[in-house]
Each structure stands twice: as C-alpha cells, then as structure tokens.
C-alpha cells in the first residue's frame, strides 16, 4: 500500500548506501549474550577484509563484556542464514550488504 498524499510521494531513503561513500553499515549481533541490549552498528569500508573488520571493530566492541575472548565467536549467520566467513575476503566479497545483520555465538558468563 502506498502513502496517501496530495502529491506524488517519492523521497529517497535517508540511510541509503551512497550517503556513506565507499562504506556501508553492518550490524553485528552477539546472539547468546544478553549483556548487549542490541546488535552493534558499524560504518565500514566494503573493501575491508573480514579479519581486519573483526580485529579493528568487532573485538573492541565485544570487549565491553569483560568475559569476551577474541577468537571465540562461532556459529555465524548472515541475515539469518547459517554462514561461514572467510578471513581473507572483503565484506563485499562475502556478500555482506548495506545494513546486513551478521550474528555469532561465543562463551560468556552472566
């Protein structure tokens, strides 16, 4: 159903990928850890390698929980589908799109 309006109602998305240049937004969700109230949102270059993304951005965020062990994440999913990241490839190569959700499980103690 379209918006009912007095004129043609067509405005661009305020979060569209082109507004981020060569970057995109990626959400990372630590699925089994309720300490994090929500998934995190990162702005990252689509050309960044998976390993760099994890080391430079995901690990420092996950370390908000003092029980986080770098290297412990497993059971990855991409947009809800089971998925295996390849460390050497870029986010674009891995099919991680703008505003995608990547999830993992990792040990912690509550």
């Amino acid at each position, binding site marked *: 159903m379209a918006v009912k309006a007095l004129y043609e109602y067509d405005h661009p998305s305020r979060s569209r990928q082109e507004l981020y240049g060569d970057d995109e937004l990626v959400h990372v969700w630590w699925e089994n850890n309720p300490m994090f109230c929500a998934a995190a*949102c990162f702005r990252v270059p689509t050309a960044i390698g998976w390993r760099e993304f994890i080391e430079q951005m995901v690990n420092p965020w996950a370390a908000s929980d003092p029980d986080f062990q770098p290297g412990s994440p497993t059971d990855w999913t991409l947009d809800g589908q089971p998925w295996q990241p390849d460390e050497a490839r870029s986010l674009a190569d891995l099919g991680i799109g703008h505003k995608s959700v990547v999830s993992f499980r990792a040990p912690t103690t509550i």
Partner: protein
Amino acid sequence: MAKKLPLKQRYAALTRDVHWDPSYVAAEKVFPHTTFEGIKIHDWSKWEDPFRLTVDAYHKYQAEKDKRLYAVLDGFAQSQGHLTLSDGRYLNAMKLFLQGVTPLEYASHRLFADLSRNFNGPGPRFAALCQSIDELRHTQTEIHTLSNYNKYYPGFHNWREMHDRVWYLSVPKSFFDDALAAGPFESLIAISFSFEYLLTNLLFVPFMSAASFNGDMPSMTFGFSAQSDESRHMTLGLESIKFLLEQDEGNVPIIQDWIDKWFWRGYRVTALVAAMLDYMLPRKVMSWKEAFELYFEEQMLNGLFPDLAYYGIRPPRHVEQAIAEKDLVSHQVYWTLYQFGFAAAFTTTVPEPSEMEWLAQQYPDSFDKHYRPLWNKAKRIQDGGDRFFFQGLPELCQVCQIPMTFTEPGDPTRIAQRASVFDGERYNLCSDGCQWIFDREPEKYRQAWLPVHQIYQGNCGGPSVPEVLEWYGITDGDNGEYLGSVEHRHWQQWHAQQAEQTAPMGS
C-alpha cells in the same frame, strides 16, 4: 438589551455560528485536506461537541488552575523544596519528562492548530482550537514547573534542542512527526484517539503519581491541572472516532487500519515510561505491568473495545504481543538506557538491593530469571572500579527508532530481528508490529532520521562520542553513572549541610 441565551444556544452561537460556507471560492479549495484520505463525511452537524466550553469560560477556568499552580511553585522554590524529594535520582524521571514529553505537548499544540484550520466542520474545528490552546498551556506550565530544578541539578538545561537531536528522544519525536505528517483524519485518530484516549493514562498518570510519591509537589500540581484538560481530550478522542464511524461505513476499514498502526506506534513510545516507572523512581508507585493491566487491558480492551465492536472495530493488531511483553519491556528498555547512559541526558545506576526485591516480587516470571543476573554482573563490574557501557552504537528499528532490544514473542532470551526490503534497500525492524507499519507505507519510513545512521553520515557534530555529546548539548554531569555524579554529590552535600545546621535535642 438582548435576552441572555440558554447555555446550549449560547455555545452554538459562539462556536458553530462563526462558521460559513464559502461562496466565491470552491469549498475544496479552502479545505483541500479532508478528502484525499478516503474518509467520507456526509453531515458535519452530527458532530456532538464533547466539551461545551466557551472561550471566556475556558479562560476563567484555566486562570484559576494556573493561579494555584504558581502559588505551589513559589512556595516550593522559597522553602528549598527540592531538598525534600525522595532522592536525587528521582529527578531523572522529570528530565525524561521534560526532554521527551513536554516537546510533544508543543507538537500537539501545532497539530491541533492545523486541524482547526483544515477541518471543514465547525464542531471539530472549535474542539481542535480548544485543545490546541490547552497543549500550549501544558508546554508552558511544564517548562515553568521544572525550570526550578535547573538551578540545582544537571540535565534540565537544553531539553528543546535535545528533543531534536538525542537518540532516545527521536523515539517520541518521530512518533509525533509521523502524526503531523499524516492527513487530518489520520492525525486525529493517531493523537486524539490512539494516544489521548487509549494510552494517555499510561503515559501521564505514572509520571504524575511518581511526582506525588516522591515529594515533587510542583509536578504533581501541574499534573492535576493538566488532568482535567486530558479528560476533555479523551472525550474528544472518543467523539472523533464515533463520529467518523457513524458517518460512512466505508470509513470503518480505514479507521481500523489507523488504530492498528497508531496503537503500536504509541505503545512503543510508552516503553520509555515503562522503564521510568520500574527503575527511575526511588519510591515506587506501581509496576509497569500493573499500570498496563489497569489502564490498558482493563479500561481499554475490556471496557472500550466491546463498545466499538458495534461499529465493526476490533482490538488493535499485535495487541497480544504488547500484552505478552508486559513482563519484559521495562527491563529491556532500562537495561538499554543503562548501557548507553554515556549518551543520555540523565543518569542511570544499578538498582538498590531493595529495588531488586521489589522488581522480583512484581515480575515473578521474568526478573530473577532474565534480568537480575545482568544487574549482578553490572554490579560486579562496577565494584571492580569499572562501569559497563556498550562501546559502540546500536542497531535501530526503522519505525519506532528504539535500539533493537525487544525479544521474540515467546522467547525472552532471543532478540527479535525483522527486515523488509524496499526499492532494493534493506530496513531492519524490531517487531511484527513495526514491520507491519513499515510495509504499509515504506515510502514514508525510509525517510526516517535515525540517530545512529545520521551520526555515521557525519551529521551530528563529528565521528567521536565527545563530539556527538557536544552537538547534543550534553555537558559533563548530565550523563553517565549516577553514583558519584554531579547531582549525587550535590544531593549528599546539601543534605549534610542541612543536618549540620539542625541542632538535635539533647546534643
């Protein structure tokens, strides 16, 4: 001299008789907004005025209430009333009110002024005009009432700009902007019915009872003063919906759709009230769950909706999910505010042991199992000299704009993730309710100003947290942990001084 008219005729003369039908310009040119939404009105005169007040009576009545309010404000200020509050922490509830609710009163003033211009029936035009004046008065009295605390405590100084900029305030702001951007009948159903009738008691009564329980006489008096207006607004909400439903059968499905949308939009906004009620009050009033059961399930679902069934209206879509969430939502939202407290214009802290006991009693099915362990861990981190904060920015819901914290129906351990693709772009949504709203009008919600996305586009002062906080107008002491904060230290210092200055008997 002319004979004095009976009240009803006098009212009609002073309101409806000021309306005229345009003769040299087509009516649809003067009132272009009342047809495009598909609502059909056959006879505006069937509108029963819900409150028969004339302007002179209105002024007299409100002036008396204002006089009482200002007397209480003066007395409270002169007697250092802020020192008799239950605790310094209480003020966080009022900061949230001033930042989140007061600007909505102003937005509501604008909305009803717009409606009083755009409706082509004199009854609703005059009712909307009265409500518009009410809302402006609420804005002013709330600002004035809470300004007293600005002399002593942080977090009260930049609420207007914060409302436009700060992440959690985009939740109420976007809700009202959504209504303001709709056609006149949808805005009327959104605000007068879905918000003022269905949900106002859930929003307003908890704040005002909180004030009364925690020694905040000025806010309580303001609440009493506004409450008599709120009941008129509720009556207007009910009259609006009945009038529209009776005018044309074709209106029924359109209105049902709006009720479905606006119930869920409004319900999501009340999540902030839920967090306030269960966690921000040093002296508890009632739990969110209890308030929800009383003001929504009992009064609305069991009281109002059976009457509306006569018109073919059923309870709002997704209401069963709201009911199922009543054990969870306040905990989830306050936990979110706690870990993003570095970017909030109020302070948060781990609940005291006695508060945890109260929460466990109020929420026997959820608190000990799911939330107490989180607070215990936060406490351990704090005892170790640190403070648990989410070191980053969260995923936001495209519709309600709350961080995506809500869980799957039936599974409180798993965050709900929904996504819709529109015009090749992915949008993330927190719940079936928000997804349904998005899918109905994706062209509208793709324009949402989402705080996290805007920060990353560089539109909020800069890429670092200090730059964003500066752009928000959050200064040191407004945010973060309550223990050891500016307001906590002030509170302790002033009470210690008071104790020193008081000579106990027998000393």
